């Protein structure tokens, strides 16, 4: 059983993440109306929002410590929030500001917060191998930290994921692969592209336990993830965990979603894991006041982060030339030693 305190924490992060995505949507569309121009407005470029997927993020990440590693894919905000990424600097990054996590160089698909060991990649499934690598490092160092790789159900057909299952399994690594199944990979429904109904069915072929939480339920995820992460932390090897989530918005902002049946979208909107957790909290005695206090705090936190981000300085054009390397391009040394090499007459 999940404690009430923990439930409140999950709920708080879920409403934070939801409010965050809704507010980013507004900010993103600024300057892009009426004619949508992807390069206009305060947040240009692609934006993939995760409204409807909060349960997976919070259910998993609330088992994690700062020294546990998480890699997230192109749709990372809910996971970042649940993992405790600095919300202000993350927001500044999304707005392309100099004080952002990546000094405005990365953008929303490339959030790196080494303080909580969070990283992203916009390339499908390519966060899986580095997560396995973080787990390998923990194992080599005899530390009990673990790693979690998040990916979409569309990513389970990608070599990087499948190879990582074997790699993690054969080296017995403390890593959990979390598949967020939102039924869609952009416009492609999963049955069009994937042979198995449940991604977790792939686990057995890699000698790994596989579980699926087939409803969008933060508490169910929390319990399943607790087991998986516990296995990892106890050095009992990797797990594949799939979670049914829903996509409340388009794949990216500006997605016309003409491919999507109306009833699919309606069903996604109806099946809201936040409502579900809210009613559980009510069953546990929380009232309107309690819930709106939590929501109020969450909204305030989001508004503060957005307001802060928008006040941050833009990077200068010439900042673009920094940070390709952390060492000067010449590497660690700048002078060659002088040996007297017998016979080395061609030097």
């Amino acid at each position, binding site marked *: 059983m999940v404690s009430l305190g923990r439930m409140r924490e999950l709920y708080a992060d879920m409403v934070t993440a939801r409010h965050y995505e809704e507010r980013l949507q507004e900010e993103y569309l600024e300057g892009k109306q009426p004619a949508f121009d992807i390069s206009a407005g305060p947040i240009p*470029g*692609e934006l993939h929002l995760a409204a409807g997927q909060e349960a997976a993020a919070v259910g998993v990440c609330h088992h994690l410590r700062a020294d546990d590693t998480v890699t997230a894919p192109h749709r990372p905000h809910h996971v970042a929030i649940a993992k405790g990424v600095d919300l202000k600097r993350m927001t500044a990054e999304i707005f392309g*500001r100099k004080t952002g996590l*990546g000094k405005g160089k990365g*953008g929303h*698909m490339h959030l790196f917060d080494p303080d909580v060991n969070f990283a992203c990649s916009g390339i499908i499934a*390519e966060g899986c191998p580095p997560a396995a690598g973080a787990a390998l490092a923990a194992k080599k160092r005899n530390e009990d930290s673990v790693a979690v790789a998040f990916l979409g159900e569309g990513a389970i057909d990608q070599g990087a994921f499948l190879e990582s299952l074997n790699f993690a399994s054969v080296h017995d690594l403390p890593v959990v692969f979390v598949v967020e199944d939102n039924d869609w*990979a952009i416009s492609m429904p999963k049955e069009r592209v994937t042979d198995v109904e449940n991604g977790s069915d792939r686990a057995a072929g890699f000698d790994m336990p596989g579980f699926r939480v087939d409803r969008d339920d933060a508490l169910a995820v929390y319990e399943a993830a607790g087991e998986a992460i516990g296995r990892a932390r106890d050095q009992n090897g990797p797990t594949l965990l799939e979670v049914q989530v829903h996509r409340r918005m388009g794949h990216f902002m500006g997605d016309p979603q003409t491919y999507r049946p109306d009833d699919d979208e309606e069903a996604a909107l109806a099946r809201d894991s936040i409502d579900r957790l809210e009613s559980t909290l009510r069953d546990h005695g929380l009232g309107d006041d309690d819930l709106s206090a939590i929501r109020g705090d969450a909204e305030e936190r989001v508004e503060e982060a957005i307001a802060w981000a928008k006040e941050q300085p833009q*990077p200068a054009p010439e*900042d673009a030339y920094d940070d390709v390397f952390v060492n000067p391009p010449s590497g660690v040394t700048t002078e060659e030693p002088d040996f007297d090499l017998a016979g080395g007459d061609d030097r």
Partner: protein
Amino acid sequence: MSDADDAVDRELTMSRAMVESIAHEMRANEEVFYMGEDVADYGGIFDSTQGLLDEFGRDRIMDVPISETAYLGAAVGAAQEGMRPIAELMFVDFFGVAMDQIYNQLAKNTYMSGGNVNVPLVLTAAVGGTYNDAAQHSQTLYGTFAHVPGLKVVVPSTAYDAKGLMHNAIRDDDPVMYLFHKRLMGIGWMPAPDGPKTPVPETDYTIPFGSADVKREGADVTVVTLGLHVHRALDAAESLAAGGIDAEVIDLRTLVPLDTETILESVRKTGRLVVVDEDYRSFGVTGEIIASVADGDLDALDAVERVAVPDVPIPYARPMENEVIPDATDIEASVREVVSGE
């Protein structure tokens, strides 16, 4: 179909022109099919297959799993059986998950088989930045692919060229990499500059590979470029003309084969060379063009400049992205430098 001798005044966006040639070839040849992610119902994230599903159905406009190695490799296999697949990599930046199929199979099987096997596959991919999509979604990688022996590499800059080059690509018995610039496609949500929308004949026609196109004649300096930067160079040429500098703008259209002759001819006339590229500066297109000219006729060359993405990944934020992707002002400045520098 309109008579080719009549004046053509129907204008198309680059994406419509591409789609028109694909549809034409699919009607003419049952062996042509298209595969890629989101190419069916969505019509291609960058409108590369808009409307084709309706006419040709799911068997010929195939959505595929997010398994680029599997589906590009499957296209290689189908092409070796004599079919003529067009396979799309949604963003060229994703090449790394399937580069072995591209580099070691697609590009080499013809050679390794002594010409007994051929691979008539068109590999399309969207390229380019200018809309703040950051380091993993904004590259052109022109040099990376042009360096691979065995691939013909096509980069259209206008609707007219896009159609003619696509007809040629699909009919070619060899592998062709067809790189279309997102900013030129005329997608509703990514406004194109004026240049790429051109008159396009309704009839089919082919543009030969290896024929660079002089998009603007000029006497003072040769600007060699491709893709989006053809239009930026033309803009720069307009401004320069006002200041009395007459720039010739050469659109490479294909990187492999490379039309060195047209470039040399122009440099022999102008003596000055500016190469403009949206790929990374080092070990890429600008180096190759300059070296080809130096190698071909060093005496003809009086001054040279490179305008390209400095050797940094593409940054996200607007001020930095604008800094690293060359614009008309950057081109102008470099032209002024080669003109005044002597």
